[in-house]
């Protein structure tokens, strides 16, 4: 599994999903799961990425 890289994830989202938002984030999770390192999107707004190793990242737009 590809190690999680926050910068790479942000660059991919900016490059392929120019309109930020929750639907785009969920679509990116489906289309390009390798950038999310098997993490799970949680949170009220669905923008909290919880990795299997316990680290938590917040995706904002």
């Amino acid at each position: 599994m590809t190690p999680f890289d926050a910068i790479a994830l942000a660059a991919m989202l900016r490059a392929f999903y120019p309109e930020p938002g929750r639907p785009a984030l969920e679509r990116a999770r489906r289309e390009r799961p390798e950038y999310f390192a098997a993490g799970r999107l949680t949170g009220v707004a669905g923008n909290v990425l919880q990795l299997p190793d316990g680290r938590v990242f917040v995706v904002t737009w």
Partner: protein
Amino acid sequence: MSSWTVTAAGGRDPAIPAHLALEAGPIVPLDPALVDAPPAPASFEALTGAALEPAGALHAAIDTGQQTIVESSDPSPFENAASDALGDADTNAGSESGALDALDPAALVDASASKSTQAGSTVGNYDEPQPPDRPIVEPGRPPEGSEGDPPRI
């Protein structure tokens, strides 16, 4: 342009490699219980009220000064005084200068010229007979016994 950002919710910044992460330094947050509470901020009005109180008297003085300036700015008293003192000096000076300008020196020049002509007509060679010379007074013979005295003329 999209503005996606991915930030760590807690713990180490994922953008910084683990071997480059900063070590814990000697500075740690202070225990709030050990730090005295800061003094209550003084009211601005309390700090400046006493200093501004003497300024109230200055306001009255400034108002009086401004009123004096406004009253003194009216030029009419000076104009009235000037007109009373000078009267119609300007008009009189203008009329006198006009009268001087109206004088025609031509008549005076002509009169002078005629006088010079008359004076010239009386100029002539001196032809009167020469008066005789003054007689020479003979001193005469001095009286006897007075040879030392000067002659009496």
